[in-house]
C-alpha cells in the first residue's frame, strides 16, 4: 500500500482541503478523478516560463533605470516593465498552485526569494549607498566599541542592550568589511534570514495545525503546498523597513526563531516543553533581552497570552522570562530609564497619545507623504481583512483548531503590549511587524477553499508592485547621497570634538564618542523647527559639552525631511540664505548636498534657558528613538 492511501478520502467535497488527505488523482477544484499529468506538465512549464519573463522584465527594468526621486519615493525611477515583472512573479506561484498537491513548494519559495532579491536590491542598485538614515545612527553605536572606547550606556541608548553593537563590532573587526558595505547588504541578508524560521512557522501551522491525523505524515495535501503563500504575504505586505542595520532587526530574527520553536511546542507538542525546547526558548529570549527592550516586551506579551489561553502548559515560563527581563532592565539598563523618565511618564500607557503619535500625526506632511501613509494603512488593513476572513472560513468550516487559536492568542498578546510605547510614533509599525508572521499564517488557513485561494493570489499579485510605494515611499528622505556621505566623512574626521546641529545623521555615524548631535528637523513637541533654532542651536537644545565648538549642517536629507514630513519645501533654502549673510556663521565645508557652518555665538546668544529648561531640552537629545519615518 502506498503512503498516499494511508488516510481515508473525505466522504464529501470539502472546502477545507488544505489539511485533508487527498487521493493522488483528485482535482483540487471539483474533487473528481481525472488524469492530471498532461495538464500538470503544461502548468509546470508555464510557471517556469512566466518566472523567466518576470525576472527579465524586473531586472531589465532596473538595469535601464536611473535614480529619480519625488514625493512618492522610488516609484518614478522605475519603468512599467519592472512593475509588470513584480506582478508576474506571484502569478508564477499561482500557476504552481493550480497544480494542486503537485505544486512545487521549492519553486514557490524560489519565487519569493527572487522577489526579495529584486525588490530589496533595487534601491541599492539605483543609489549605490546604504539607504535609511537610522542605519547610520545605529552604526554610531558600534563605532565606540570598534575604536576601543567601549560601551557608554549613559550616552548611547542601545548600549543599555549591547549585544548588537558588540556583535557588529566583532563582525567589522574580524572581516574588515566597510561600514557602508555592511549597512548596504544588511537589509537583504536579514530579510532572507527571516524567511527561514518563518517558513518553519508557516509549514507547522499549515500542515500540523488541525488535528492529530495531519501529523501522521506522508500524505501530500494542499496544506503542504499552501505554506509558501505565507512567505509571499510576509514579503509583499512588509513595508516597515525594519530590516535596516539595527538592533531591532537582529532581535526580530531572534523573535521569529523563538516563535518557530513556540509554534512547534504549542501546535505539535500540545504545549509541552522538552529540555531542548526549554533551552531554545530561554536562550533566544535572553538574546532578545540583551538586544532590544521592545522585542522582549512583545515576547512577554505573547507568553502571557498563550499561558492565559492554556496553550502553553508551563506557567512558570512567563515568570522566569519576566524575571530575566526585569533584572536586566533594572540592574543594567537603569541609565536608560533614568534618562528617559520624563518621556516615559508622559507617554507610557497613554492611549490617546499613542493613537495620536502612531496614527494621526503620521498622515501629515506633504500631500504625497500623506497619501503614502494612507496607502500603508490601507494595505495593512487588507492583510488584516484577509487573515480575519480566512480565520472565519476556517472556524465555520472545522471549528477551533490549535493553530488558529494560537494565532489569535498571539495577536492578542502583541496588541496587549502595544500601548507600552516608549518609541514615539513607531509602535504601530512594530506591532504590524510582530504580527506579520501570524497574520501570514492565519491568512493561508483557508487556502483549501478554491475561491479564497484565487483571492489570495490576486491580492499578492496586486500588492507586489504597490510594495514599491509602501516600502520606498519615503525614499526622498531615506536616500543618502554620495555627497552626503562625503559630508559625513568630513564631520567625523575633521570636526571632533564638536556639537553638530542638523545634517542628520552626520554627527551620529562615526567618531560618535567625540560628537554630540541634534536633529534639526524634529519638531519640538507640536512646534516645528524654526529659523531661530538654526541661528542659535542652544536656544531649545541642551548640549552635554558646552565647551565644544558648535557646527550647523544643512543637507539634502534635512531638506527632504522638511518637505515630506512638514510640508515646508523651501524652508532649508531660506535658512541657507540667512546663514550665508550672517557673520556669526562661516562655511567650513560645502558640496552640492551638504553645507557646514561653524558658529561663533554672540554674547547675547548664550543659552537663555535655565537649568530646568535646559534639562527638558536635553531630554530631546535622543538620536534614534524618536525619529519619524
Amino acid at each position, binding site marked *: 500500500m502506498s503512503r498516499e492511501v494511508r488516510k481515508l478520502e473525505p466522504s464529501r467535497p470539502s472546502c477545507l482541503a488544505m489539511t485533508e488527505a487527498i487521493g493522488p488523482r483528485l482535482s483540487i477544484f471539483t474533487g473528481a478523478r481525472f488524469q492530471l499529468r498532461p495538464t500538470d506538465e503544461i502548468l509546470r512549464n508555464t510557471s517556469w516560463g512566466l518566472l523567466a519573463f518576470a525576472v527579465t522584465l524586473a531586472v531589465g527594468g532596473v538595469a535601464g533605470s536611473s535614480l529619480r526621486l519625488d514625493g512618492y519615493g522610488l516609484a518614478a525611477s522605475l519603468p512599467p516593465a519592472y512593475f509588470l515583472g513584480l506582478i508576474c512573479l506571484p502569478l508564477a506561484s499561482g500557476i504552481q498552485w493550480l497544480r494542486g498537491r503537485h505544486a512545487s513548494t521549492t519553486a514557490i519559495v524560489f519565487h519569493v526569494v527572487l522577489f526579495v532579491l529584486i525588490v530589496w536590491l533595487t534601491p541599492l542598485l539605483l543609489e549605490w549607498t546604504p539607504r535609511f538614515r537610522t542605519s547610520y545612527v545605529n552604526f554610531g553605536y558600534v563605532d565606540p566599541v570598534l575604536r576601543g572606547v567601549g560601551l557608554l550606556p549613559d550616552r548611547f541608548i542601545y548600549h543599555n542592550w549591547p549585544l548588537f553593537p558588540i556583535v557588529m563590532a566583532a563582525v567589522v573587526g574580524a572581516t574588515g568589511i566597510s561600514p557602508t558595505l555592511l549597512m548596504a547588504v544588511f537589509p537583504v541578508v536579514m530579510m532572507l534570514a527571516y524567511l527561514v524560521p518563518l517558513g518553519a512557522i508557516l509549514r507547522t501551522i499549515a500542515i500540523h495545525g488541525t488535528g492529530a491525523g495531519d501529523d501522521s505524515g506522508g500524505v501530500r495535501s494542499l496544506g503542504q503546498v499552501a505554506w509558501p503563500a505565507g512567505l509571499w504575504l510576509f514579503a509583499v505586505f512588509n513595508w516597515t523597513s525594519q530590516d535596516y542595520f539595527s538592533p531591532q532587526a537582529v532581535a526580530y530574527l531572534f523573535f521569529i526563531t523563538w516563535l518557530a520553536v513556540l509554534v512547534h511546542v504549542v501546535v505539535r507538542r500540545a504545549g509541552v*516543553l522538552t529540555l531542548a525546547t526549554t533551552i531554545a526558548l530561554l536562550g533566544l529570549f535572553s538574546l532578545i533581552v540583551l538586544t532590544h527592550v521592545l522585542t522582549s516586551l512583545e515576547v512577554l506579551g505573547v507568553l502571557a497570552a498563550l499561558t492565559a489561553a492554556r496553550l502553553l502548559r508551563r506557567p512558570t515560563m512567563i*515568570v522566569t522570562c*519576566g524575571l530575566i527581563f526585569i533584572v536586566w532592565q*533594572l540592574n543594567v539598563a537603569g541609565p536608560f530609564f533614568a534618562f528617559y523618565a520624563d518621556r516615559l511618564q508622559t507617554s507610557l500607557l497613554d492611549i490617546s497619545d499613542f493613537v495620536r503619535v502612531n496614527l494621526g500625526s503620521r498622515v501629515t506632511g506633504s500631500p504625497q507623504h500623506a497619501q503614502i501613509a494612507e496607502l500603508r494603512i490601507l494595505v495593512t488593513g487588507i492583510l488584516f481583512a484577509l487573515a480575519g476572513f480566512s480565520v472565519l472560513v476556517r472556524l465555520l468550516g472545522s471549528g477551533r483548531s490549535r493553530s488558529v487559536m494560537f494565532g489569535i492568542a498571539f495577536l492578542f498578546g502583541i496588541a496587549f503590549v502595544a500601548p507600552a510605547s516608549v518609541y514615539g510614533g513607531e509602535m504601530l509599525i512594530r506591532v504590524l511587524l510582530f504580527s506579520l508572521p501570524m497574520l501570514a499564517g492565519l491568512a493561508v488557513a483557508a487556502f483549501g477553499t478554491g475561491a479564497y485561494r484565487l483571492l489570495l493570489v490576486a491580492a499578492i499579485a496586486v500588492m507586489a508592485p504597490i510594495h514599491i510605494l509602501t516600502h520606498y515611499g519615503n525614499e526622498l528622505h531615506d536616500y543618502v547621497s554620495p555627497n552626503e556621505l562625503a559630508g559625513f566623512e568630513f564631520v567625523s574626521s575633521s570636526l571632533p570634538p564638536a556639537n553638530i546641529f542638523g545634517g542628520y545623521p552626520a554627527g551620529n555615524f562615526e567618531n560618535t564618542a567625540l560628537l554630540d548631535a541634534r536633529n534639526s528637523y524634529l519638531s519640538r513637541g507640536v512646534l516645528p523647527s524654526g529659523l531661530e533654532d538654526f541661528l542659535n542651536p542652544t536656544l531649545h537644545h541642551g548640549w552635554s559639552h558646552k565647551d565644544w565648538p558648535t557646527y550647523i549642517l544643512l543637507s539634502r536629507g534635512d531638506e527632504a525631511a522638511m518637505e515630506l514630513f512638514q510640508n515646508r519645501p523651501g524652508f532649508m533654502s531660506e535658512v541657507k540664505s540667512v546663514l550665508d549673510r550672517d557673520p556669526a556663521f562661516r562655511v567650513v565645508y560645502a558640496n552640492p548636498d551638504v553645507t557646514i557652518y561653524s558658529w561663533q555665538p554672540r554674547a547675547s546668544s548664550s543659552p537663555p534657558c535655565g537649568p530646568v529648561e535646559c534639562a527638558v531640552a536635553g531630554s530631546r537629545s535622543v538620536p534614534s528613538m524618536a525619529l519619524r519615518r
Partner: protein
Amino acid sequence: MSLQAVAVAVLSFAGVLPPGHDQRGVDAVAALDSLWWLGPLSLGAVVVMVLLELGKSLPPERRLRRLADRATKPLVAVALIVVLSSGYRLAEIIGFVQ
C-alpha cells in the same frame, strides 16, 4: 543602590578602608534603601528559576524532575517577589512612584 556602595559601607564599618573613606561609608549607608538586597537576590533568582525550568523539562520519572515539581511553588513565590520589587524600583527610577 549599587553593590559598590554596599561594599564601601561594609568595608568602612569593618575598618578595612582608610580613614578618608569613613564619610563615604556613612554616605553609602545613608543611601541604602529598603531594596538594597534586590540586586544580588535577583541575580540568584534568575539562576535558580532557569534551573527550575530545565528540571521541569525532564521526563517525569527523573528524580530532578520530581524535585523541581516540589520546589516550584516556593521558588515561583520568591521570583514573583523579586519581579514585583524590581518593578517597583524601576517605577521609582522612572518617577511613577515617589
